[in-house]
C-alpha cells in the first residue's frame, strides 16, 4: 500500500510539473524535394514533435542511420500525419510549464520510395499561464533557409535524409555463422 501511495504521489507530482496544454502545428509545412511544387514532389509520412532538451536532433539522425528510430519515439511530445506534404493541424499535447525548444521530424518516404527523414530547425514552444500554449512551424519547404532546413548533409541538400543501405538480417546471420566457424577451425 505504501508503495502504491508513493507511486501515486510521484504520478501526481509528474503531472503537476508537466501539465501545460499546448497545440502544435506544421500547418503549412509543405515539404517538397526542391524540384518543384507538384504533388509528386511532396513527401508523405508521420511527423513527430520532440523537446530538444530531451532528445537532440543528432540523436534522432543517428537512430535513423542505425535503424533504431523506435527507441526515440517514446519521448515524442506529439505526432501528426503529412499527406502530400501537408501536416495535420492543431493537435494538442501536454508539455512543460515553461517555454521550451522543439523541433519537428518526419519519417516518411522520398519520391522513389526510399525511407527518408526530415528534421526541422528548432523553434520555441511558447508556454502560456493562461489558455493553451503553442508550438508552430510556419510555411517552409525543404529548400528554405528559414525554418525547416538541414542539420547535416543530406538528400538533395534539403532536410531529408535517405536511409543508409544496410545489410539484411540474413546476411548478418551468415556473417556471424562464418565467424563462428572460423573460430572453431582455429581452436
Amino acid at each position: 500500500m505504501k508503495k502504491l501511495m508513493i507511486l501515486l504521489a510521484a504520478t501526481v507530482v509528474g503531472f503537476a510539473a508537466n501539465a501545460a496544454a499546448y497545440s502544435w502545428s506544421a500547418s503549412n509545412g509543405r515539404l517538397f524535394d526542391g524540384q518543384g511544387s507538384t504533388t509528386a514532389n511532396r513527401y508523405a509520412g508521420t511527423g513527430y514533435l520532440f523537446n530538444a532538451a530531451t532528445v537532440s536532433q543528432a540523436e534522432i539522425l543517428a537512430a535513423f542511420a542505425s535503424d533504431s528510430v523506435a527507441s526515440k519515439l517514446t519521448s515524442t511530445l506529439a505526432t501528426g500525419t503529412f499527406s502530400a506534404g501537408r501536416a495535420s493541424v492543431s493537435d494538442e499535447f501536454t508539455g512543460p510549464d515553461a517555454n521550451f525548444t522543439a523541433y519537428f521530424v518526419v519519417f516518411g518516404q522520398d519520391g522513389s520510395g526510399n525511407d527518408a527523414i526530415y528534421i526541422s530547425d528548432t523553434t520555441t514552444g511558447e508556454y502560456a499561464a493562461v489558455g493553451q500554449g503553442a508550438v508552430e512551424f510556419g510555411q517552409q519547404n525543404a529548400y528554405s533557409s528559414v525554418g525547416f532546413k538541414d542539420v547535416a548533409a543530406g538528400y538533395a541538400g534539403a532536410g531529408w535524409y535517405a536511409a543508409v543501405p544496410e545489410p539484411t538480417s540474413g546476411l548478418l546471420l551468415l556473417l556471424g555463422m562464418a565467424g563462428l566457424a572460423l573460430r572453431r577451425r582455429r581452436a
Partner: protein
Amino acid sequence: MGYAQQDTAASGFAMLSAQFESVGVVDGSAKLSDLTIGGYDAYDPVEDEGGTSGSFRIQFLTASGTMEAQYFWYDDDEKTGWFDKDGISADNVVLGAAKGLWVRGAGLSMTSAGAVNESDIVVPTASSGFKAVGNTFPLNVKLSQLAVTGYDPYDPVEDEGGTSGSFRVQFLTASGTMEAQYFWYDDDEKTGWFDKDGIASGNVTIPAGTGVWVRGGGLTVRIPAPEL
C-alpha cells in the same frame, strides 16, 4: 461603420477584443467573420507559397484560465476564414459584448470591422474565478470610467456593506502571467481603483480593442459607450 487594426507581438499571446459590433445588431456582439487577419505574404497559386494556415489563433478562456475553444485563421490554397481544429468553419461564432480574446498572433495584425456600439455594456462575473473582458469600443477607457456594482453600498452608520478589493482587473503578459493588478474599493476608507500598494489608479487605461483578466467576485462592471 468603421474598422481598426491592431498589430500583434512576434511571439506570445495578447488579450484583445473586437472593437465594433456586427452591422445590424444592437447588443454589442460581433462575429469572428468581423475580424480579418493580415501581415503575411498573400498566397501565390503559381508558386504555391505564401498565405497562412493557423498561425493566428483566438482562444476563449474558462474561469480557471484554461482554453475553452480555439479558432484559427486560414488563408492558403485550400481555404480562407476562421476554422476550428477540426477544419469546421467558425466564421459565424459569436463574440459576446465585451468578450476578451486570448490571441496568439505571431507578428500579424487583426482588423476589426463593423458598427460602433452606442450602448453601455454591463458584464456580470461569476462568484469565483476569472473572466476575459474586452474593451470592445474603438476608444480607450480608463479604469475610473468603469462602474462596479452588485454589492450592498457601504453604510457609515452601521459600518457595513461596501466592497474592498473583491473586484480586480489584471493586465497579462505575453505568456499569461500577471503584469499589473488593480482593485476596486468602496468602503469606509476609500472609493475607486487602487493598486496593491493603495495608490490611486483610476487613470490606468485599457486601450481600445484590448482586454483584461477580471476577477469579479459575483459583481458586475459597466463599460461606458464612447460619446460620439
